[in-house]
């Protein structure tokens, strides 16, 4: 069983190697099959392992492949481990990953870089699996860097477009900032506990007062900075909307379902640490809340179908961090799972629309697609209802759980978050109505518009079913049904529960009446959001203008709160200036002069000594005799 665990990431790695080394020679169909098969096999092994795991009494499965780094008092193994949390992520990563691989088969079929695409996609899957399967922080870090690399490669997949390359670079650089935080966190933990193994960290944490330990507090902050970068939180979120430059399946897999949730995974993984440092949790709460609000507000006035979804992802990730901030780790993971379903569905649906309309992404040029793309319309509706939080779709349960815990933890945050949920419903249905209702506003002949082929339709339908039913793994307490996910995750969250029982004043119990209240309010707010969208974009048939907005509020949200411009002024411009100064002062004046000086000196010395190497044997002999005489004389005079 242990060996099977290390097999899961091996399949995509092999797929990557085959497709990556031979993508010019392998025919498209075969390359696609290899890619799909690699992810499918991983998924099957993961399922089989999960069944074994559940039958075997949920014993931690761990396998150490080799001893990797050994220090004076510590060692780090190259090892994998799987507990309940890992299995949740594993199912999402391999399951959704598999579906998206199938979707890509249809979506990317026209692309010349088909094999390359599958190679990268498999490499991503491999990295992501290493990330969630890693038994210690360093293993997770390998995966963390790997997914960052794949994100970079896939955002810039169409690398003939300069703007896409810029977007890829931006994502990479932004992520580096977060990665530095993660790395520093690992160092702090290693320095403090002499181990990076998760199980050992949890044990070590149970015997220290993390709150009074600056190393641990800073480790917590550093890990969160890492999560901020990867999970696109304020202030490092601007890369995610730009990341939409990549092919749509990439946006679905990497920038919605899996990679961007790895920050949440990390925080849940370190829940023993975070639960004992409440002020960092508070910090996470407000960062998450601000991100959720800003993401939602910007989402209301974007006109690119993928940009709307990107900001929606940013906003939903903010929701998850709010949950982490109030210590509701289960709720966060629950939302990760349901979000993976419905956001992947939304992106794939958007992909289907874009594919059907021959690469049109502007929602102002869509409309009336309900009849033309009936299947896409259906699944999009399901996903929309899920993200808007309409019962009984999956998003309702997970969002409601987050809202309920926020209500118990922080009332102001709850109010703001509920409003954000309403805005979410509004902008998602704005998108929905603009794309699928009223008349078609584009200029394609209607016969040319086609719905998804089978390879694309199948994943859409499966994800739609999951988006409907996914919520039942975590029913609210008031229904007197088991919260499957919560029960399952209990062992992972043991340290948090222990702390909660030690400090009952920090533990927020939710009464049933409160829960009904929260649920009712969130449903009403969602319906209001949908209603506003309905009245604006369906009844009044409003369509966003092509001209730049004059209304300052819309200007602000359409301009994405001018984060890019602000960063440009306060970070990019000064850095460029400094770089320019150094390029003249250090590079040209110091290094160049020194290097060129060496060259000039050597040439001068060479040309002046050239005549001594004239090739005349007697000349050499003469020099030799003279030199020997000289040394002989020196020797004689020295002895005297």
């Amino acid at each position, binding site marked *: 069983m242990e060996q099977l665990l290390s097999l899961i990431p091996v399949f995509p790695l092999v797929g990557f190697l085959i497709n990556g080394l031979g993508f010019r020679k392998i025919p498209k169909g075969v390359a696609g099959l290899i890619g799909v098969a690699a992810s499918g096999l991983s998924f099957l092994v993961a399922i089989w392992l999960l069944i074994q795991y559940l039958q075997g009494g949920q014993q931690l499965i761990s396998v150490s492949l080799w001893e990797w780094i050994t220090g004076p008092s510590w060692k780090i193994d190259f090892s994998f481990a799987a507990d309940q949390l890992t299995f949740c992520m594993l199912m999402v990563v391999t399951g959704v990953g598999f579906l998206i691989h199938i979707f890509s088969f249809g979506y990317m079929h026209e692309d010349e870089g088909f094999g390359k695409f599958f190679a990268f996609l498999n490499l991503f899957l491999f990295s992501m699996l290493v990330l969630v399967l890693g038994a210690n922080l360093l293993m997770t870090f390998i995966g963390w860097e790997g997914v960052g690399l794949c994100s970079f490669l896939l955002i810039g997949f169409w690398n003939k477009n300069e703007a896409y390359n810029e977007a890829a670079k931006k994502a990479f650089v932004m992520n580096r900032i977060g990665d530095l935080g993660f790395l520093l966190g690992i160092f702090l933990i290693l320095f403090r506990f002499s181990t990076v193994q998760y199980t050992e960290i949890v044990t070590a944490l149970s015997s220290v007062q993390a709150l009074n330990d600056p190393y641990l507090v800073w480790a917590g902050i550093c890990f969160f900075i890492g999560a901020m970068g990867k999970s696109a939180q304020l202030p490092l979120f601007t890369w995610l909307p730009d990341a939409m430059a990549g092919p749509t399946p990439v946006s679905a897999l990497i920038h919605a379902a899996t990679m961007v949730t790895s920050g949440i995974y990390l925080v849940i993984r370190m829940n023993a640490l975070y639960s004992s440092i409440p002020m960092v949790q508070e910090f996470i709460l407000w960062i998450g809340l601000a991100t959720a609000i800003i993401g939602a507000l910007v989402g209301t006035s974007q006109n690119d179908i993928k940009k709307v979804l990107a900001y929606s992802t940013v906003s939903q990730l903010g929701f998850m961090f709010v949950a982490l901030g109030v210590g509701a780790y289960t709720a966060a993971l629950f939302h990760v799972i349901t979000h993976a379903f419905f956001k992947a569905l939304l992106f794939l649906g958007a992909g289907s629309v874009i594919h059907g309309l021959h690469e049109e992404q502007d929602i102002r040029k869509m409309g009336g697609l309900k009849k033309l793309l009936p299947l896409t319309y259906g699944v999009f509706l399901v996903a929309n209802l899920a993200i808007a939080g309409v019962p009984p779709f999956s998003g309702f349960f997970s969002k409601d759980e987050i809202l309920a815990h926020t209500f118990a933890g922080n009332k102001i945050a709850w109010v703001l978050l509920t409003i954000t949920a309403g805005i979410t419903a509004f902008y998602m249905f704005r998108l929905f109505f603009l794309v699928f209702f009223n008349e078609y506003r584009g200029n394609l002949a209607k016969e040319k518009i086609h719905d998804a082929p089978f390879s694309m339709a199948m994943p859409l339908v499966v994800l739609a079913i999951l988006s409907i039913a996914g919520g039942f793994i975590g029913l609210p307490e008031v229904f007197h049904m088991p919260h499957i996910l919560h029960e399952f995750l209990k062992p992972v969250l043991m340290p948090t529960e222990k702390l909660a029982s030690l400090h009952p004043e920090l533990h927020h119990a939710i009464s049933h009446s409160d829960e009904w209240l929260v649920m009712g309010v969130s449903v009403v707010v969602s319906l209001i959001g949908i209603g506003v969208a309905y009245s604006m974009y369906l009844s009044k048939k409003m369509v966003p203008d092509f001209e730049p907005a004059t209304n300052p509020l819309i200007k602000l949200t359409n301009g994405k709160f001018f984060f890019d411009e602000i960063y440009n002024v306060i970070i990019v411009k000064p850095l460029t200036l400094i770089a320019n100064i150094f390029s003249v002062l250090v590079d040209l004046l110091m290094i160049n002069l020194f290097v060129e000086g060496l060259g000039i000196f050597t040439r001068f010395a060479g040309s002046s000594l*050239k005549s001594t*190497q*004239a*090739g*005349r*044997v*007697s000349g050499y*002999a*003469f020099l030799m*005799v003279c030199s020997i005489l000289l040394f002989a004389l020196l020797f004689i005079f020295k002895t005297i």
Partner: protein
Amino acid sequence: MNQIPEIFRVIPVNNFVILAVVLFSIGILGVLTRRNAIIIFMSVELMLNAVNLLFVTFSSYKSDPAGQVFVFFIMAIAAAEVAVGLAIIVMIYRRIRSTDVSLLNNLKG
């Protein structure tokens, strides 16, 4: 202290040394001034033998056989060296139809 051999009363040791120096200098001059490879080669041999003479002289002057042992070695090696050296000269001659060393300037920078 060993006894100085009888011969050095008849011919003082200085004469031997001077002869050796003269032979050596002739050798050097030959090497430096001549352009024919064979003559240069002969000059080198002359230098070698000047040194040998010195060795033998001091060996018998000091009654110490070590110097003579050296001379045997030098002679043996010189024989080998002559074989190689002459072979090289023959090859050079075959190639450029001359033994003039001033023509060997292919490595000139």
